[in-house]
């Protein structure tokens, strides 16, 4: 669910239900095996504390949440780069061995 869907949901559901769902999601994210998800949850939590303290406003929170979504895209791109590099290194090694073998036959 992206931020727009989330905001639409707030209109449909009761605010308390949304709060409980959000809290549950945040708690799960804080203990996720992915470092990116844990860091993201920590940033969101910190921003919400700043909001409660009046140091950030709702506009800040909306912007920050949208930015988190973009960060997830970078994370996905980097994961794709890492996976392709691993495969590439493996294939290069296989080709080196094959060529070496052919030249020696």
């Amino acid at each position: 669910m992206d931020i727009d869907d989330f905001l639409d949901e707030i209109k449909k559901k009761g605010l308390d239900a949304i709060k409980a769902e959000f809290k549950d999601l945040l708690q799960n994210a804080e203990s996720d095996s992915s470092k990116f998800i844990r860091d993201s949850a920590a940033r969101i939590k910190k921003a919400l504390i700043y909001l409660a303290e009046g140091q950030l406003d709702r506009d800040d929170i909306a912007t920050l949440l949208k930015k988190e979504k973009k960060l997830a895209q970078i994370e996905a791109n980097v994961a794709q780069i890492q996976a392709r590099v691993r495969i590439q290194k493996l294939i290069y090694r296989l080709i080196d061995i094959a060529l070496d073998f052919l030249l020696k036959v």
Partner: protein
Amino acid sequence: MQLASNILRIRSVIAIALTLALIGCGLIGGFNARALEHLTALKANYSKVMDTFSSEDRAKTSDGYSFTPQELSLLNSQTDAIDTSFRQALEYSKSLGDELRTKNIEILKELTVADFAQIKKLNRYFNPAQKDSYTSQTFSGFDRAIKGECVRIDSTCK
């Protein structure tokens, strides 16, 4: 016997060449020092703008503080300079033909634009909480994009 062996070798080389051609479709570009330089310079320049336009004293809305024309002019000139640097980095990245590298730079540009737009909209300095929240995200984006460059083959960074 010799002829059969040569034919086998030629067929094997053709098979490897075809495999290479197929792999080529999904190949990722190798490490590029200039692309890394672009990322680190952009991060440093972004950091400088955020340092310049964050202040505990001049961020208080209760004081009714707003940017002077000189401050606004400085902000615009600094963000324009970063915009130009992003355009250069993007053009260079496109010339390398690696879509994932280019996508990351595009997203980083969006992240920095969002931060600068927020400062301009407020028309005053970011307070420490704003600086912390906005920059920690954008720095994280830069760090991950730099990691995306450093994991490539023949990389000279970690």
